[in-house]
């Protein structure tokens, strides 16, 4: 191979002609689509209101909210899976984001609150704070090599505590109850729509497409898959492992903050108890979507389908008047089944690897 070193990548670029674009739908995703359709049919026969516009809008709004936060969880799981990557702090981060956004408006609360920021500035501060706290998670994981489980569990508590402080500051007294308010931008985020499509769904789709592009077509996205598979491998490939981990957790915090702002707008209230336990739903969304907790594998499409499926089940069971504790049973079982399916899939892949190696 005489000319091996002589050729330049520049030439390859020009010679390259993109051919057919395959959409990589895997068996697992196909199974999710089938499950979503089957459940829709099942729910509609049992609860006739399930396919009504109201009900479908409800599914769409809640799928989008959990999905937006789930996108962050997805890149944490794909990119840091080999390190035990998970972000347990997202529920508290949602509450904190919502509380900051609403609290800084001034108009939101009647009590003596000196801070009155324009709404877009308030939103920006909320996102900046949750993003920065997410980056803190990442710094602790990458520099001190702490387990993400422990770090984000700590952050779950810290962010919840901060939420109390923010709400107490905003209403001028210690407040544990939700504080209702009204603001056009929050209303638009949480309740508004473009024609028949809820605003939040549009935001979700835009973010999902953006992240799918990042994962598929940027060096950063590629490095996430390498890092998630094996951190040492990533380091030896020259990837800045620490920086990547910090960015991943920062994005997760930022998206959780955004999800919290949407939730606050939807409820027209910021409560220190908002979004309690939502981290479980968000993890479920990502895992059911086929994102392997062991890292290095997963897709945005899977997360989108996972979000739709979880919200569909929520809404359907509500319509059937299933008590919320029984809903926990159903969702928990589905989560475990999803993880088992992932394990089976992995075992099959590994067997193939051995057989042909």
């Amino acid at each position, binding site marked *: *191979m005489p000319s*091996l*070193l002589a*050729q330049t*990548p520049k030439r*390859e*670029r020009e*010679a*390259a*002609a*993109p*051919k057919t674009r395959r959409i990589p739908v895997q068996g697992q995703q196909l199974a999710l689509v089938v499950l979503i359709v089957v459940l829709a049919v099942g729910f509609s026969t049992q609860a006739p209101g399930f396919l009504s516009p109201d009900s479908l809008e409800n599914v769409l709004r809640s799928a989008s909210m959990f999905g937006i936060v789930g996108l962050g969880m997805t890149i944490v799981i794909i990119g840091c899976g080999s390190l035990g990557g998970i972000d347990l702090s997202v529920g508290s981060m949602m509450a904190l984001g919502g509380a900051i956004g609403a609290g800084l408006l001034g108009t939101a609360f009647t009590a003596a609150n000196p801070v009155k920021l324009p709404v877009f500035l308030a939103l920006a501060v909320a996102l900046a704070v949750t993003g920065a706290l997410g980056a803190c998670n990442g710094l602790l994981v990458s520099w001190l090599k702490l387990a993400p489980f422990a770090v984000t569990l700590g952050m779950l508590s810290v962010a919840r505590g901060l939420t109390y402080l923010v709400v107490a500051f905003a209403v001028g007294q210690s407040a544990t109850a939700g504080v209702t308010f009204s603001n056009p931008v929050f209303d638009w985020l949480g309740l508004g729509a473009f024609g028949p499509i809820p605003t939040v769904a549009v935001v979700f789709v835009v973010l999902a497409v953006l992240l799918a592009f990042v994962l598929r*077509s*940027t*060096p*950063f*996205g*590629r*490095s996430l*898959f*390498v890092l998630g*598979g*094996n951190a*040492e*491998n990533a*380091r*030896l*490939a*020259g*990837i*800045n492992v620490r920086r990547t981990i910090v960015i991943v957790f920062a994005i997760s915090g930022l998206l959780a903050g955004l999800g919290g702002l949407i939730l606050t707008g939807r409820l027209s209230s910021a409560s220190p108890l908002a979004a309690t336990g939502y981290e479980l739903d968000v993890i479920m969304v990502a895992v059911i979507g086929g994102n392997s907790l062991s890292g*290095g*594998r997963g897709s945005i499409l899977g997360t989108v389908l996972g979000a739709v499926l979880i919200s569909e089940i929520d809404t359907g069971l509500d319509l059937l008047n299933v008590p919320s504790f029984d809903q926990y049973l159903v969702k928990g079982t589905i989560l475990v089944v999803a993880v088992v399916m992932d394990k089976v899939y992995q075992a099959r*892949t590994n067997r*193939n*690897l051995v057989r*042909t*190696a």
Partner: protein
Amino acid sequence: MQGITKSFGHIQVLHGVDLSVARGEVLGLLGENGAGKSTLLNILNGVLPRDDGEIVIDGEPVTFDTPKEAQNAGLAFIHQELSLLPYLSVAENIFLNRLPRKNPWLVDWATCNRQAADILERLAVKIDPRTLVGRLGTAEQELIEIAKALSMNARILAMDEPTASLTEAEIERLFALMGSLKADGVSIIYVSHRLHEVAEICDRATILRDGKIVDTVDAKTTNSHTLATMMVGRELSEIFPKTQRERGPETLRVSNLSTAKVKDVSLTAHRGEILGIAGLVGSGRTELARAIFGADPITAGEVLVDGEQVTLDSPGSAIRHGIGLVPEDRKLQGAVLSMSNAHNVTLASLSKVSRWGQLNRGGERQAAKRLVKDLQVSPANIEQETGRLSGGNQQKVVLAKWLFSQSKILIVDEPTRGVDVGARAAIHGLLDDLAGQGTTIIMISSDLPEVIGMSDRIVVMHEGRIAGELARAEFSEEAIVMYASGLEPTKEGSKA
């Protein structure tokens, strides 16, 4: 042990090996890396099943299916890597799985500690049996391993390089202990790469080469040089594609480099040169490579690339300075097995196939296709997961990664380990071509014919240091083995 035969797959690693050890005798077991010593010991110990042959202890044929059965028959095995549990006490480690009981549910700690103390006393070791093993030094841990073996009333003790991490004084103590065990009638099989130790402690020595017994000799009267020759003395049957090259200017200079495992190493490498690095496994070769590649922290010394001092604090910075590493552990460090060949090829140089932060996937495929074709990766499918290729083809993909990133200095660590003959020749050809085109190749290899056949110059490492450097005219397996064992080669030892 008589006529022991073992194959892994269709590769036969032991060919009818006979080994005997008498009561109260220390038998040295010598051989190069990969000669089959560990396999032999693992068969004796019941870790691996044998294909053929028999094991006879005190006149009775025995078969061990598990290490536990070997233990019960009076065999104890002390591995190079100690197998103690750091957060348990000395007594607990000694009686692991066999803790004395008051009744079926409760451990009798008093008896346990007393018995442990008795054994330690027999060994003249002053350690409280209640100490946590993790608090002890390596030498003391080694003694605990021996105490554990004694507590099982071992009659046959196999030790795999027990002195590898001990100081001179600690070795003296270990040898004194071995002497008293010997006097008690314990048989010891002693594996070591340190030839002078074999002369000191062993009665006889059996030399294993390529899975066959070369000879068994009197360890006291046979000199180190003869032993070294017997370990390596094979015909150079392989043809290496070595071409004559002019050595270019210096590209890499390492001065007084130290890391956790590398001590004060200085060397230079030149454009168009293949620099071989020989030495035993664990001599610091891999760690030196990792330090130059920025993968291990450098504690002292400096590295110059093309005459300019560089900071190598991460593999990323090494890659930017044109350094590439094909690591020893291909599966965990070299290639991402779950990714396609195309993605593996561009892994270390994603910026080359992207513009404005976006990957040019078409360009990536184009580049991968060319390299996969040039290196004759089989099957030549860029979408195939690298994990599904054979070892040799995986290695070609890893090499392709550095060809694509156009490394000026390429470090290859055991480039042909676990690779079939055809791929081996292809990799050798490729390395020679690259050197011919001006790349600096640093090749670490335990394979002596390979390192001799391919290199322009060889440095030999021993215990983290450079033990010697050989110019092409001075190359000989004996000289390398002597340096690697911490000895000075004798002049008459050079190759005929």
